[in-house]
C-alpha cells in the first residue's frame, strides 16, 4: 500500500503519468526538489511502470481488412468481345423484326383462335378433361412402373440363371477332377500290386 505521507502524493502520481496542467506541473517539480518522500515515491512509481512494460505487445496474427461487396461500377464503351456479341445480337433481332413486319404487311397472318374460347367450355367439360388427363397420367406412370419392374425382374432372373450355370459348371469340373483323382489312385494301386511295373 501507499506509505507516502506527504499531502501531495496524489499529485506525484498524476505527475508521473503526465496528467497535470502546466501550472501544477511546474509547482510540483519545485516541490520535488525539496521533498525526498515525494521524490522517492516518484522513483518507485516509475520503476514499477518500467517493470510492467517488460511484457511487450504482440503482433496481430492475421491482418484485418474490409472489402466492399458492392457490385463494380458499370463500364461503358469498352471494346471487348461481349460488347461486339451484343451488337451482333441486337442487329439480328432488328433484322428479324423487320422481316416479320414486312411479311405481315404483305400477307396478313391467319386469325388466331381467341383466348376467350377457353372460357366458353363448361365446368363439366373442364372436369372431364382434367379427369382424363389425370387418368392418362396415372396409367402412364403405372405402365412405366410395370415396365421398370419387369425389366428389373428379368435382369435379376438372368443374373440368377447365369450364377446357377456357373455353379453347375464348377460342380461338373469338380466331379471330373474327382474322377481323375480316383482313376489315378486306382492306377497307382494296381501298379503297387504288380511289382516291376511303373506308371
Amino acid at each position, binding site marked *: 500500500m501507499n506509505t507516502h505521507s506527504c499531502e501531495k502524493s496524489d499529485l506525484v502520481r498524476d505527475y508521473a503519468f503526465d496528467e497535470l496542467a502546466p501550472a501544477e506541473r511546474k509547482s510540483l517539480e519545485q516541490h520535488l526538489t525539496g521533498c525526498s518522500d515525494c521524490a522517492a515515491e516518484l522513483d518507485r512509481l516509475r520503476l514499477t511502470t518500467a517493470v510492467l512494460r517488460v511484457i511487450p505487445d504482440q503482433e496481430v496474427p492475421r491482418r484485418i*481488412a474490409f472489402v466492399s461487396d458492392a457490385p463494380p461500377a458499370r463500364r461503358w464503351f469498352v471494346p471487348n468481345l461481349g460488347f461486339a456479341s451484343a451488337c451482333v445480337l441486337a442487329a439480328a433481332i432488328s433484322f428479324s423484326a423487320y422481316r416479320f413486319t414486312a411479311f405481315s404487311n404483305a400477307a396478313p397472318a391467319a386469325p388466331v383462335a381467341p383466348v376467350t374460347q377457353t372460357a366458353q367450355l363448361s365446368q363439366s367439360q373442364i372436369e372431364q378433361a382434367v379427369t382424363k388427363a389425370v387418368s392418362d397420367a396415372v396409367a402412364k406412370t403405372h405402365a412405366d412402373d410395370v415396365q421398370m419392374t419387369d425389366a428389373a425382374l428379368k435382369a435379376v432372373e438372368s443374373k440368377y440363371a447365369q450364377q446357377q450355370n456357373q455353379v453347375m459348371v464348377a460342380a461338373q469340373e469338380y466331379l471330373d477332377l474327382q474322377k481323375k483323382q480316383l482313376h489315378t489312385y486306382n492306377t497307382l494301386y494296381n501298379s503297387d500290386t504288380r511289382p516291376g511295373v511303373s506308371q
Partner: protein
Amino acid sequence: MIFRAAPGGAHDVTPRGAQDSDLIARVRKGDVEGFNLLVSRWEKRVFNYLLRLTGNPDDSLDLSQDVFLKAYQNIRKLDDAARFGPWLFRIAHNEAYSRFRKYRPEVAAPESEASETSFFERQTAPGIAVDLALAVAGALDRLNPEQREAVVLKIYQGFKFDEMAEILDCPVSTVKSRLYTALDLLKTELAPSPIRGTR
C-alpha cells in the same frame, strides 16, 4: 453496403501526414479503403488490449474484427473525430465484456484462470529475465479485472484519465482509484525483486 473481414489488405501504406480525422471523413463518404487505413493504424493496439483482457489470441482476433465492423457501422455516430481512439476502445471494452458474459455467464468479467498459464506469463520480451517477466505476469494476474484493465489502458495503451473514463464509462476519480490501487499492489509485489535483480 455489406462488408466482410478479409485476410490481407492495404496495410502499412498509411500516409504519414493523414490524421485519423481525415480518414474518418473519407469513411463517412463511403471510402472503405480509408477505413482499412484506420484499421491498420489501430488493429495492433485493439488486438493487444483485447488479448490482455481475454488472454486468448483467437478470441481477441475475432473480437477485433467485430470491433472494427461495429466501428464502421457506427462511425457516423462519432461526434468528435479527435476522440476516435477512446470511442473505438469503448466498443472494444463492450464487445469483450459482452462476449464474455455470453459464453461464460457464470463469470461477470474477463478474469484469467489462476490454475492455467496466463497470457501475461506466456509473454517475455527478448533479453528480459524470465523470472522478472513471470513475476510481472503473476502480479498482474492477481489484480482484479477492473484494476488490471485500468493498468492495461494506462500503462500499455497510454490513455489519459478522461479517455479511460470514457472507455470504462465511469468517473475519472474511479479510474484513478482503480489504477493507483493496482499500482500500489504491483509496487509492493514487484519492487524488491527487480531492485535486487537490476542493481
